């Protein structure tokens, strides 16, 4: 029932194509580490994100404990030793798209934008910069981006016991399939 109300509102307010926020609750974030002794890969498909194409504001949030690993031991190390996810259950990003005005929702295409903002992992925030690729296809908005995260920048310590099992810099990729949000 909630959804038919949302659809009705959407149909009524289709003035100003960029004039609404887009969101997702099923954003995918993957984490990849290549180290001499081990390759670690984890996926989180419950990330939430809101993007406002009118102002260029964009936000991401993810629950650290929702990353999935192939091996239980890796998941334990990740949560207990590296991320301390019981103390810091979320990782978040709050930022600004530079080139948001060129993204046209009514014109299928691929749009690139620089993105800057504050990334908070393990309770530590750093200003970061990256590129986001938006793909508009029949009104659907998809976004993808990748960044390298230097663990030391977020005070993520690699105990000597597991040195060589996790890389000092990890690759993070972000994908979202946004839906229009109406409030």
């Amino acid at each position, binding site marked *: 029932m909630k959804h038919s109300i949302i659809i009705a509102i959407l149909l009524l307010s289709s003035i100003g194509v960029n004039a609404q926020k887009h969101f997702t609750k099923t954003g995918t974030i993957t984490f990849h580490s290549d180290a001499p002794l081990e390759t670690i890969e984890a996926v989180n*498909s419950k990330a*939430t994100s809101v993007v406002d194409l009118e102002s260029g504001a964009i936000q991401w949030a993810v629950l*650290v*404990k*929702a990353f999935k690993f*192939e*091996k239980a031991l890796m998941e334990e190390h990740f949560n207990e030793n590296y991320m301390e996810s019981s103390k810091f*259950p979320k990782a978040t990003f709050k930022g600004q798209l530079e080139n948001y005005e060129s993204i046209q929702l009514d014109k299928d295409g691929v749009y690139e934008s620089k993105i800057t903002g504050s990334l908070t992992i393990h309770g530590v925030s750093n200003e970061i910069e990256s590129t986001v690729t938006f793909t508009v296809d029949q009104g659907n908005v998809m976004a993808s981006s990748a960044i390298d995260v230097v663990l030391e920048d977020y005070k993520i310590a690699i105990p000597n016991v597991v040195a060589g099992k996790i890389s000092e810099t990890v690759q993070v990729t972000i994908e979202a399939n946004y839906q229009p949000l109406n409030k």
Partner: protein
Amino acid sequence: MKKWFLPIFIILLAGLSYGYYEYSRGPRNLESETTDLAIGAESLVQQFEADENLANTTYLDKVIEVKGTILEIHPPNDIVLDANNMMSNVVCEFQEEMTTEKLNIGDPIIIKGQCTGYLSDVILVKSVIINK
């Protein structure tokens, strides 16, 4: 000298086997784990909305059984439990062997999952169906 060789060898082998077993353990299967807490979907979301830090202390990382009605089904492995809340519900991501087949919107259900916290919904992972 050879008398001592065999017991040490066996201990070493046992140690290595255990190490290998620990290392190659796949993701946890909650079906065989004890439930820490049982709660209704509505109450769970209310608690997170009222005081997220307190709710995290109570529920974060715990294996919880949540009772609710299916609000949404997103194959292949997500369902949403109705928390009678305008903004937030309980999102359950199934573990790999579970499937959303045979589930219907409106079904009462009990889901056992690991609580990972609260974003715009309370999110459970490694979920299994306990009862239908």
